[in-house]
């Protein structure tokens, strides 16, 4: 196995194990087997928070050090975060229908604010696409990356501010309100998704390095593109 395959292999194994834990865990008293969607939904949400936090960190480090690798990390993490935010919303909707009787409830602050977080980072990626120069792109998006991270604690604490349909915080100061096998499945899912995140990050940053290398010019200065005109061609 090459070095490059280690992390993907580990994450695949971890996901397989987490899947087994999820299927083997006890069903919920009220939700029955529908609760197992939680083992994908919650790790997806966790991964989204992690990813956007790393984007903010990469942005801050780029602003400080001006080293391109930090910008690549910020970009890669935002892309992964957007995918897993969408997955969290999707699994949340699938989970909501049998349990709450609705795919989407506008009264639910966490659902709404998670969707907003998705839009914020879609805007971040749109800004990156709209800026052709790599240095200008890094500068502008690093600032937006720091501003956008405000959404992350807002999503997490929004449940505390509004009484909604959404499950309250499971991990509270007075203890964890879940069965042991469910806790194990949840923690397994969190660990597996974190490994998956690392594997995806390494690969995406590597791809970004290759993309940058491929866009290097032949070193010929811009001014040489302009030559003397052919005045005889003007009839």
């Amino acid at each position, binding site marked *: 196995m090459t070095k490059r395959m280690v992390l993907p292999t580990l994450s695949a194994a971890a996901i397989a194990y987490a899947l087994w834990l999820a299927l083997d865990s006890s069903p919920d008293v009220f939700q029955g087997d529908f609760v197992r969607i939680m083992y994908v939904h919650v790790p997806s949400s966790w991964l989204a928070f992690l990813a956007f936090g790393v984007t903010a960190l990469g942005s801050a480090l780029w602003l400080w050090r001006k080293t391109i690798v930090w910008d690549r990390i910020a970009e890669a993490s935002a892309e992964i975060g957007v995918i897993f935010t969408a997955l969290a919303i999707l699994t949340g909707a699938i989970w909501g229908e049998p349990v709450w009787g609705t795919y989407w409830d506008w009264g639910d602050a966490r659902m709404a604010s998670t969707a907003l977080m998705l839009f914020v980072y879609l805007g971040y990626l749109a800004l990156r696409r709209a800026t*052709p*120069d*790599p*240095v200008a792109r890094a500068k502008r998006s690093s600032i937006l990356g720091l501003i956008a991270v405000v959404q992350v604690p807002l999503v997490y604490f929004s449940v505390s501010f509004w009484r909604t349909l959404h499950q309250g915080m499971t991990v509270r100061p007075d203890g964890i309100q879940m069965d042991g096998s469910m806790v194990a499945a949840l923690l397994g899912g969190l660990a597996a998704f974190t490994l998956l995140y690392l594997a995806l990050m390494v690969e995406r940053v590597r791809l970004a390095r290759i993309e940058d290398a491929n*866009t*290097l*010019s032949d*070193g*010929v*200065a*811009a*001014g*040489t*593109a*302009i030559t003397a005109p052919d005045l005889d061609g003007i009839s």
Partner: protein
Amino acid sequence: MANLGLVAHFPCAPGVEFRVSSSARTDRRLSRTVNSSLVSLRGVGVRFGPTPVLTGIDLDLAHGEAIGVTGPNGAGKSTLLGVISTLLAPNEGSLELFGGPVQRRDLPQMRRNIGMSAHETGLYPELTLLENLQLVERLTGEVVMSAMQALEVVGLAGAAHRRSSATSAGMQRRTDLARLIMTRPQLILLDEAHAALDADARDIVDRLIHRTCEAGGGAVVVSHDRSVLARSLERIVEIRAGGLT
């Protein structure tokens, strides 16, 4: 004609030693010796995306010196001005201004000593010529003459209350020059300064360069037309294919 006197050709003595000025901008003047350059570029390179625009630029501008920069379209002349103005950070090499390296914390102070005028003036169309300059006056608080006086110097006192959108390109350029006359930076950067100017206005440019050099400052004047530069500048360098010749 503006009351400047004609200046057809003047040498600027390089490396002039000067003392601290007694003008209102005393705190911004720096005492320098003959060995300290006003501007010093070493190995400066700039890329836009993957494409190099400037490569290996070495350039020194002494106190009291004016230098012309010429070259074909796309050679990197405006980019060079962007680097010297500190608005464009080079990808390689180093820039020293006023005898020291350019550091982020010193930028506002350094930039107050730099004045730039390009063919696009940046005047606010809805404001009058006078209001545009009064804004500069309020923002900096450090001027050697009032906005109205500056407009008088450039011969635009009669148009002071006209909106800049209702003035010609030449009048807007003169107003931009009035801004430099009003703020009197130590280093002047002029990009195609003589474009869209009549003979009187070109004299304003020449006199501004001359006075700035006389006071121990310096000027970098860019033009694609070497003959325009040769009228008033002794030292002219050319940029070709991103490098200085």
